[in-house]
């Protein structure tokens, strides 16, 4: 079987697995967020946290809860890292230095999982399990909660209540993420992923010197790392590490996990708004973008132009021989299209075009299919923009899902749309202005520029994948990338919740023949066009100096 056919087979299996889970999981999530009763476990949590699960919040309160919860999470995570020597299972790995601790705390709370540290060298098991893994769950649940609040804005009419953040957070964690992650972790162990509290194993190398190969409670973190589109590996090599991702099957399974929730959320959306077609439209846009990106990257990596690559027949540098080109590009497109950022190959070593795909995939705003929750609200914001721009062309005040898009809605959507380009462009510009920046980089010219753009693109979009090839441990990068992650996460969330609040107050306008149809293939094209055009217009100059110059 040629690699190409085998690759197609993998893509086929992946798509079939996703299709099989689409309805049950999507419907399950819709039920979870719409359910009346509470589980006993949940009641316990509410009692502990002293929240009344049956009171609903305005968008401002909901937003304050999101911000408050995230702020406390950052502080706790920061303290855990700083106080690591006092914690068990630290194996003498000392306190994490302040800049890195801040960056890491922000990174995991914002669902970015940008890692400026090498997991097995810097962090002990306690910080990994009680700190990072916990955030992997709750940061994902926060994203889903915000997305659900936005959908409620579309569904509800003439109310100022969007639901209860604490309930959405708890349910997302307890009823959705935990059960799936538990099953996935067991499956991963079965597939060979390591799960151990030991420090490591002693191995005598060929040179006769004894080395310690680090072990970690990997499978439990690996499962939620993919499922929650987090991407922060317990090992530095991430999913290219054989203990995290031992073989082709685990690779495919992890790939499936990271696409699972973002894809199924479109079904949840369709269910909640009472028109499944609306969900299929979003899924089609996401699928279309994902497929085109996959094809482009696949073609690029099998048609390289470097001397060494030509000799090898493909751009194998930086890729795992265990996975080969197809599984590497499949992962690359999935991990950058969702805001996961886990890697099973080094994106820095991809061809100009292949690396550009990873970069562009993030710069699209993480909507193909995007992070857990973040992908859904991201594409809904773009849908609002698309409807507003082109919707006027049917001769009515634009309306989406029965809600009119007026001044307040457009303002909120505009802020949500504006945040990411601002962070990425200003961050990149600022970093390049610094005279010391070239010293941190292993490359110059167009590839060097791509590395910096990638770093801020990854942080601003809460992706977390790294182009690597760049040392980001200086205080400047730790701080600016940290701020980029914060702004890239919470500015859109605030704007999205404001949008939801304003939508919920409106009446629902019944659809007529005069209403812009948003459940049609035409709208798929329109929305895809908007996503691509907005990203292209914003980033073409930067891309021209980076990957485009490199690829041509």
């Amino acid at each position: 079987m040629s690699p190409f056919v085998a690759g197609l087979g993998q893509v086929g299996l992946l798509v079939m697995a996703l299709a099989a889970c689409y309805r049950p999981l999507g419907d399950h999530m819709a039920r979870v967020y719409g359910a009346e009763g509470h589980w006993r476990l949940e009641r316990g949590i509410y009692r502990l946290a002293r929240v009344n699960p049956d009171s609903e919040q305005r968008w401002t309160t909901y937003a304050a809860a999101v911000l408050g919860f995230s702020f406390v999470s950052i502080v706790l995570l920061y303290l855990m890292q700083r106080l690591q020597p006092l914690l068990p299972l630290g194996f003498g790995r000392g306190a994490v230095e302040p800049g890195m601790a801040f960056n890491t705390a922000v990174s995991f709370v914002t669902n970015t999982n940008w890692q400026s540290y090498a997991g097995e060298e810097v962090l002990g098991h306690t910080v990994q399990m009680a700190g990072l893994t916990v955030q992997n769950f709750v940061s994902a649940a926060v994203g889903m909660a915000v997305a659900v609040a936005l959908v409620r804005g579309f569904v509800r009419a003439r109310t100022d209540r969007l639901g209860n953040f604490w309930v959405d957070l708890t349910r997302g964690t307890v009823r959705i993420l935990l059960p799936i992650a538990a099953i996935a972790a067991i499956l991963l162990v079965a597939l060979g992923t390591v799960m151990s509290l030991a420090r490591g194993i002693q191995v005598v190398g060929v040179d006769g010197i004894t080395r310690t190969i680090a072990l970690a409670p990997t499978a439990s973190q690996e499962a939620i790392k993919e499922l929650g589109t987090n991407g922060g590996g317990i090992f530095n090599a991430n999913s290219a590490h054989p203990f995290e991702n031992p073989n082709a099957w685990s690779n495919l399974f992890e790939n499936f996990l990271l696409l699972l929730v973002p894809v199924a959320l479109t079904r949840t959306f369709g269910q909640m708004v009472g028109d499944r077609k609306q969900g299929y439209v979003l899924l089609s846009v996401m699928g279309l973008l994902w497929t085109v990106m996959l094809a482009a990257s696949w073609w690029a990596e099998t048609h390289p132009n470097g001397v060494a690559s030509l000799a090898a027949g493909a751009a194998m540098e930086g890729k795992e021989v265990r996975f080969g080109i197809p599984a590497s590009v499949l992962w690359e497109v999935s991990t950058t299209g969702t805001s996961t950022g886990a890697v099973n190959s080094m994106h820095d070593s991809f061809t100009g075009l292949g690396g550009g795909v990873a970069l562009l995939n993030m710069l699209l705003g993480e909507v193909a299919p995007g992070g857990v929750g973040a992908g859904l609200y991201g594409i809904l914001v773009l849908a609002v923009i698309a409807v507003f721009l082109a919707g006027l062309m049917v001769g009515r005040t634009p309306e989406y899902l029965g809600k009119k898009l007026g001044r307040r809605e457009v303002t909120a959507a505009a802020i949500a749309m504006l945040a990411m380009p601002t962070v990425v462009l200003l961050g990149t510009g600022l970093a390049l202005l610094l005279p010391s920046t070239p010293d941190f980089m292993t490359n110059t010219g167009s590839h060097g520029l791509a590395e910096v753009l990638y770093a801020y693109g990854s942080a601003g979009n809460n992706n977390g994948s790294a182009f690597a090839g760049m040392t980001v441990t200086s205080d400047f990068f730790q701080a600016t990338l940290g701020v980029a992650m914060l702004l890239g996460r919470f500015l859109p969330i605030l704007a999205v919740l404001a949008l939801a609040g304003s939508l919920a107050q409106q009446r629902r306008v019944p659809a007529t023949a005069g209403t812009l149809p948003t459940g049609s293939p035409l709208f798929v094209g329109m929305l895809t066009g908007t996503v691509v055009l907005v990203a292209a217009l914003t980033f073409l100059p930067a891309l021209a100096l980076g990957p485009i110059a490199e690829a041509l």
Partner: protein
Amino acid sequence: MTATTPLHTPEHDPYTPKEAQELHAERTGRKLAAGVFHPRQLLVSLPDAFRKLHPRHQLRNPVMFVVWVGSVLVTAFTVLEPSVFSIAVAAWLWFTVLFANLAEAVAEGRGKAQAESLRGLKTDTVARRLATNGTAGTEEEVPAVDLRVGDLVVVEAGQVVPGDGDIVEGIATVDESAITGESAPVIRESGGDRSAVTGGTTVLSDRIVARISTRPGETFVDRMIALVEGAERKKTPNEVALTILLSTLTIIFLLVVVALQPMAGYSGRQISVIVLTALLVCLIPTTIGALLSAIGIAGMDRLVQRNVLAKSGRAVEAAGDIDTLLLDKTGTITFGNRQATELIPLPGVEQEELAAAARLSSLADRTPEGRSIVDLCVVDHGLPAEPGDDERDGEFIAFSAQTRMSGIDLGDRQVRKGAASTIRVWVTSHGGNYPDRADDIVERVSAEGGTPLACAEIDDDGRARVLGVIRLSDVVKPGMRERFDELRAMGIRTVMVTGDNPLTARAIAEEAGVDDFLAEAKPEDKMALIRTEQEGGRLVAMTGDGTNDAPALAQADVGVAMNTGTSAAKEAGNMVDLDSDPTKLIEVVEIGKQMLITRGALTTFSIANDLAKYFAILPALFVALYPQLDKLNIMRLATPESAILSAVIFNALVIVALIPRALRGVRYRPMSAAGLLRRNLLVYGLGGIVTPFLGIWLVDLLVRLVPGIG
């Protein structure tokens, strides 16, 4: 309710089917009539365009303000370091600002001429004010500007009405052509729904006393002047939202350009401020930014051209959003007057006999109903329309409100037609017998929603007898069904409102093809219907003229008051139709839609244009750094300078090229939203991507000839 009673001579009755059909033919199968645009208007408006270069004016439009600042910046740099290229860029950036001003100035200019003619009405009218204690004779002459609300004024034939008001005493014919453009005078009388008089109009006959209802300076004419001049123009909600989005895009492109400098610097080449500014101006949505206010003004102007005054742009916008149209049956869906549709003879009477009698009895009846009876006899029975020689000798009995009969006496023979009860009295008083069969027919016709008229005669022998019954029914105007089908395709539901009983209402509703009807409607029912629709999230439009329509007019999202109506109605509605044509509501909706479509189309076009501009400018900027980027120069533009300049020039010229489109509005045909979207996406989305590639390439062919550029 009949909307209007112009003083037509019967020969000019507008409701004769033939004329109505011609009128309709004019309206259907048309594009929305385009306003006339002469290139000369561009020249005339130039001085205004220059005046608008003032920064205070520019600040109102964020997109164009950025261009303005860019122009100042580039000019400053050009003064410091002049070159052919920098001078050319500076000049064309100023042209860009100027062209935007021009678009607005042209749009405003079209209203100005109209405002001037209206101002002529405000010459120093002298008012004859009655002393407030009211006794006759205590009359004083005061300037019209000194009138206060509540003052009573006397106006006699040949005098100009000094201010807006309602007639409290008298009846008069009034020439309102100054406002409506309609030369036929109209009747105004105290009480009822035709009591309003407008300042500036002329009383042609009789004497009226009117109570002033508006303060000077706030009269209808004043407001009209302000409206057509655009002086009171506020941004409409949708315009505000669009401006926010355009500003956001502008900010994004500002960031793109700001971040480009360090990226370029890192790559080894600083970019000049002139080039960066040129890039910025090309990227930000200048096309729609420049034309946005012109589109709004032109939308109002298109309404004015159709003799509809919108009190705000908001109302015009709302018109495009209308989901439900409430249409009065009478005068809107059916002709204002009932028409004869059938002759039903009694047993023993020949059809021809009845027809002859019906015609004879109606020859003297000059009411529309009477004329329709003659018409029916002419068309169906081949009888002559005019009285024959022998008939002229007869004595005509004209219809009057007292007798409720009309007819003719030919020697001893008398023929009459009229309301059944009147005819019964007439026949029995002449010794005739009123048969039960006649009662049956009369009842049946009534039950079916028609109006029965009985026809009887006293023959030469002095024998009185009833001949039969004439059925008068509502006749749906031709073409209404097609109009409603169009509206349905546009997603608009039509509801017919009538005072008729449900049975009649249903029959007419089905014939006309409306979606729903409200029968036996009282004003409060109408109000309730509007509220219900609005509760369901639908926007409602209606027309009205009576004082009892006022609350509903105010409640409706778009309320078009008839100019013939009371001032209360005109005050409550957010539009006034000077022609008092209730069908125009449909056109108002189309104009609203067209305005929104124009905005959306030009926005899409503007943004889609950016792709080609990148392909022109990016290779130009960086080809020195990365020669391989020349592959992106797919238009094969001559030099970096010519490429950048061509993009700037194209960007400026496209504004001028689109001014007529902005003023006329994009082509609009009633169709479903899906159809409209597909069509407009193709034309303005795809067209917006392709056009600039061609345009920039063409401009470059010329620009490359300039020494120092090519």
